[in-house]
C-alpha cells in the first residue's frame, strides 16, 4: 500500500524550484537590460 504524502516528489525538487526562480530572475533581468540597450535607454 503506497504511503500518501504531500512532500516533494524527488530529493531536490525543492532545490530545482529554487534554481528555477533564480534562473527566471536572471533571464528577466538580462532580457530587460538587452531591450533597454536596444531602445537606447542605457
Amino acid at each position, binding site marked *: 500500500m*503506497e504511503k*500518501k*504524502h*504531500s512532500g516533494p*516528489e*524527488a*530529493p*531536490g*525538487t525543492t532545490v*530545482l524550484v529554487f*534554481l*528555477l526562480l533564480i*534562473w527566471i530572475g*536572471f*533571464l528577466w533581468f*538580462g*532580457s530587460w537590460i*538587452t*531591450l533597454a540597450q536596444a531602445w537606447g535607454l542605457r
Partner: protein
Amino acid sequence: MKSSLELTSAHRKLLYSWLLYAISAAAIAGTLAFAVAMTRTPGVRLLPSARAFHVMLVGHVTFALTIWLLAFISTVWTYAAGRAGLPLNRRVGWSGLIIALAGVVLISIPLARFQGQDVMNDYVPLLDTPLFFVGFVTFVAGIGVTAANYLAAVLRRDRAAGPLPLTAYGMACAAVAMLTGLTALSVAALRLGLGANGRPIYDYYQAMFWGMGHSFQYVNSATMVVVWYTLIGVFLGEPKVNQKLAKGLFMLFAAFPLVTPLPYFFYDPITVTQHRAWSILLDVGLSLPIMFLGPMILIWVWRAAGATRAAPWLRRMPWNEPRVMAFAFSAALFAFGLYIHPAVRHGTLRTPAHYHSVVVGGVTLAFMGLAYHLLSSVNRQVVWRRVAVVQPYLFAGGIMLLVAGLLGAGDLGAPRKTYDAAVTGVAWLKPMVVMGIGAGIAALGGALFVAILLWSLLRKVEKPRPVAKPVFVGAAGD
C-alpha cells in the same frame, strides 16, 4: 495502474487526434528520408539537383526531428495525464493541437514551393523565407501550450491521491525541458535580433537554434526513457525500482537544459556555438540520467522474473511481441549511438551516424512500440498482427545498416549535407551502398508502421464498445 478504460471519452479523442497527427508526420518524414537517402546512394541519385536535395533534406529534418517527435511527445503527455488521472484542461489541450497543426500547414508551403535559400545549420535546417519561420514558431508554440497544459495539470492534481507515478513525473521533466527550449529560442532571438543583417547566414541561424536544439534533445530523450518504462510496465506492472532515485535522475532532464539560455547573455550571441564547454556539458548531461535509468530497467526485469506473478513467457524473450522488441532494439541502438558519439568528427557522416542511431534507432523505435500500445487506449485494434510482429525487426535492421554505412563512410571522410553527385564513386562507395540498402529496408519498416497505424486508427469500429479487446495482452490486462 489505471487501465485504459478509465480514460474519459474527451481524453481519448485528444489522444487519438495527436496520435493520428504524429503518424501522419512520420509518414512525410519517412518519405523524405527515403528520397534523401536514395539520392546519396551510389548509382541511384534519386533527386536531380543539389537544390532539390537540400530542400528535401530541410523537409526531412523538419518533419522528422521536430514535427514527428514533438507531436508524438504531445501524444505521450496526453496519455500520461490520462493514466495518472491528471486534470488536463480540455480547451487548452485542443488549442495546442490546433496551433501545432496550423504551424505544420504553414511550414509546408515554402517546402512545397521550394521558396527561400536553403540553410544547412544544425537542429533546424531551414528555408530562409518568412513563412518558414512563422510556421516553425507556430508549431513549437502549439507544443509549448501542450507542455504547459500538462505541467499545470501536474501542479493542480489532487495530492491526496498519492505521489505522481514515475512515468508522469518523467513527462513533467520533459515538459519543463520543452518550455526551457522555447525560452532559449526567445532569448536567442532577443540577443541576436531578427534577421542576419550582414552577418553570415549560416552562423546566425546556427547560433539562433543552438540552445533550443540542445534542450529539445532532452525532451526527446526523457520521453524515450518514459516510453521504455511504460512498455515494460505493460507486462510487469509498477516499476520495481527505487522511486526516489529514478525521479531524481529524471529531474536531471529538467535541470541540465536550464543552462541553454545563459551563454547568449555571457558572450556575443553569434559566437555561442564556439564556446564548446557549454555544448560538452549539455552532451554529457544528456547521457547521464539514461546511463542509470536504462540499467535500472534491467534490474526491474530481473527482479520480476523471480516473482511468480510474471507471465511464464517472460522467462524467455518474447520475440513475437512488437512492443517488447521495439523496446529491446531501441535500447540497443540507443546504446550503440551513445557509444559512437565520441567518434563524431565534425563535418563528416560520423555525426549523422551517431544521431540516427540514438534518435531514429533509439527514440523513434521506442515511440513505435508505444504507438501499438496506444491503439487499445483509443478503442482500436491492431490490424495485420503478423506484419506488426515483423515491423520492428525490419526497421531496426534497416537502421543498423544505415548507421553502419554512414559510420563507415564518415570514417573515410565523406562529407555531410552535400549532394555528393560529383564525388560518388570515390573512396566511400561501398559503405554508402550499405547505407542505401539499410535506408531501403528501414523505409519499408517505416512504411509498414505507418500503414498499420493509419489503417488501425482510421478503420471504422463497427459497434461502439466500452471494452476494447486488444490483440496484445499484457500482465495488467490492457
